[in-house]
């Protein structure tokens, strides 16, 4: 793994997890989407959630971010039992989710997107107004810290690349105090260079002590930044491995559910 040298990969810190999901089950009618999934995230780590299409990744993170209520199982947030009834509750507790799309408004400026829904104001009563100077400055600084130099804070988000938009969304979540950052397939639609930018951003966020949940079905992207890896298959956890305990081939096999991927892989020349 060449990316190894690039990121720090602190040995998954031996501290209490921020969030612990225990034996989460989720049924939709007679469909069992999750059949007892346990998962936890510690501060400053990047925990990858891997799984093929239909493995239950989306259902699981939606449970974590308050979109779905689990049918059974419990969620411990900073040691206390929690039950999120809306995504807003989870957000307020410090769980931010960055979706692949649906996060940015292309016609609006970076600054306006950055503060959307949480605009700082100055003045009182009817003269309360946006603190544009402060907004612009914070947006520029935060973006620069993530390695993106904006032309101007009033640049429309539509002019940014997919990776840069992802980064604005991540920077926004971190700025507003996210303790857990859930990234739903952040790299699946991106090119090589944009992908490495997003992975580098994940690394920066992790160093700030935020627990990152990185959902992907691309083992190589996961191996590049992950500290721990959990594989979901058919609604169940197939186990969690620390970095160094598992190879990408083994992960790939787990994701495919023990099917003879090796044979297939041989014929494809190890390209998947």
């Amino acid at each position, binding site marked *: 793994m060449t990316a190894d040298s690039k990121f720090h990969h602190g040995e998954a810190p031996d501290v209490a997890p921020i969030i612990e999901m225990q034996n989460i089950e989720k049924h939709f009618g007679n469909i069992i989407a999750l059949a007892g999934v346990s998962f936890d995230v510690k501060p400053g780590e990047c925990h990858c959630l891997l799984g093929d299409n239909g493995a239950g990744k989306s259902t699981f993170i939606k449970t974590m971010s308050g979109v779905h209520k689990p049918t059974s199982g419990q969620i411990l947030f900073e040691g206390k039992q929690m039950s999120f009834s809306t995504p807003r509750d989870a957000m307020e507790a410090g769980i931010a989710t960055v979706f692949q799309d649906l996060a940015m*408004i*292309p*016609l609006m400026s970076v600054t306006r997107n950055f*503060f*959307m829904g949480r605009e700082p104001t100055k003045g009182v009563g009817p003269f309360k107004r*946006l603190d544009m100077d402060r907004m612009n400055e914070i947006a520029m*600084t935060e973006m620069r810290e993530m390695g993106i130099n904006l032309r101007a804070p009033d640049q429309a988000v*539509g002019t940014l690349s997919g990776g840069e938009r992802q980064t604005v969304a991540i920077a926004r979540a971190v700025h507003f105090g996210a303790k857990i950052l859930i990234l739903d397939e952040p790299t699946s639609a991106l090119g090589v260079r944009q992908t490495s930018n997003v992975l580098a951003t994940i690394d920066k966020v992790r160093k700030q002590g935020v627990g990152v949940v990185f959902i992907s079905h691309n083992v190589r992207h996961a191996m590049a930044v992950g500290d721990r890896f959990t594989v979901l298959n058919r609604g169940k956890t197939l186990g969690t491995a620390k970095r160094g305990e598992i190879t990408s081939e083994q992960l790939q096999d787990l994701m495919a559910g023990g099917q003879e991927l090796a044979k297939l892989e041989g014929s494809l020349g190890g390209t998947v």
Partner: protein
Amino acid sequence: MSEDAAQAVRDERMKAEGLGARILKRPELGAVAGFILVTVFFLLTADPAMFTFSGIVNFMTPAAQLGILAIGASLLMIGGEFDLSIGSMVAFAGLFFAAATVTLGLPLIIAIPATFLLSAMVGSINGIIVIRSGLPSFIVTLAFLFVLRGLSLVGLKIATGGSTQLRGVREAVEGDWLAPFFSGDAFGALFKVLADAGIIETFNNGAPKVPGLPIEIVWFVLIALLATWVLLRTPVGNWIFAAGGDANAASNAGVPVRKVKISLFMVTACCAALVAIITVMDAGSTDARRGFMKEFEAIIAAVIGGCLLTGGYGSAIGAFFGAVIFGMVVIGLTYTDFDQDWFQVFLGGMLLVAVLFNNAIRKRVTGER
């Protein structure tokens, strides 16, 4: 953050952006350019009387009446919705206002707030149906276009005992202390002073040719300024852009999208009520045709003003200029040798050019790739 720092980290792939490019990105550019074009056109073809002070007041009056509606419509369009019922809303609010003052004999201090309240309620019904059902606002408000127009007719007949015109508003409100805020001319005393000083034109008897600024122009300018301030400098403005740009992304980020949209429907209806109150008091009567086709004219003014039909982009100042262009063309043609009926051709043409222009601008702003 210093300018140097910003320079030092410049991306080498970014070309310097000239003043021209910056101006091009303003949503109101189209309307301002159109305004200049139309002004030049009439300077060349119209009787010079059009651009005397009284001439300007002459075309600003219809512009203001439309503009108040257009600003409401533009806010709603930026918020991602349409209201085709505002023209009928003018008739409906006009009927209610006239009936309250004439038939019920209520003083303005009760009749005016009641009219606004009723309009806001109708607006919120529009909004709630659109939001709850998820249907396009186009269809829902089209239904209300007919419902309100029909109710106005029926209501008029009930209030008058069979007639489709309700008269006597002017007499009913005469002497009411609130009347000067909604009818007649403002700054009369100032105009008298200016006339005496010879600064503005006077009739032979020394009275100023323009006795004052028609009150709707004052409202028009105030509302344009207020709407612009709200849009650009308050959190609510950010929510309006966000709700129209992508309602889903906005609510994911915590913007109260439903509240914003329903409030915008209420604001638009209240703009219609204001126009109704002003025009009914001005005319002294109301009829069922009041506000006829105004919904389309208001939307045209908003689109000329840079609003995108898809929402999330536009400006209130743009709608202001859109309405002024409208007023200039309607009234201006009477100062020229052209047949006045060219007005509709002109309006349609402007709309088409504006939409094409806005579409191109949007592609530039988003860098569409």
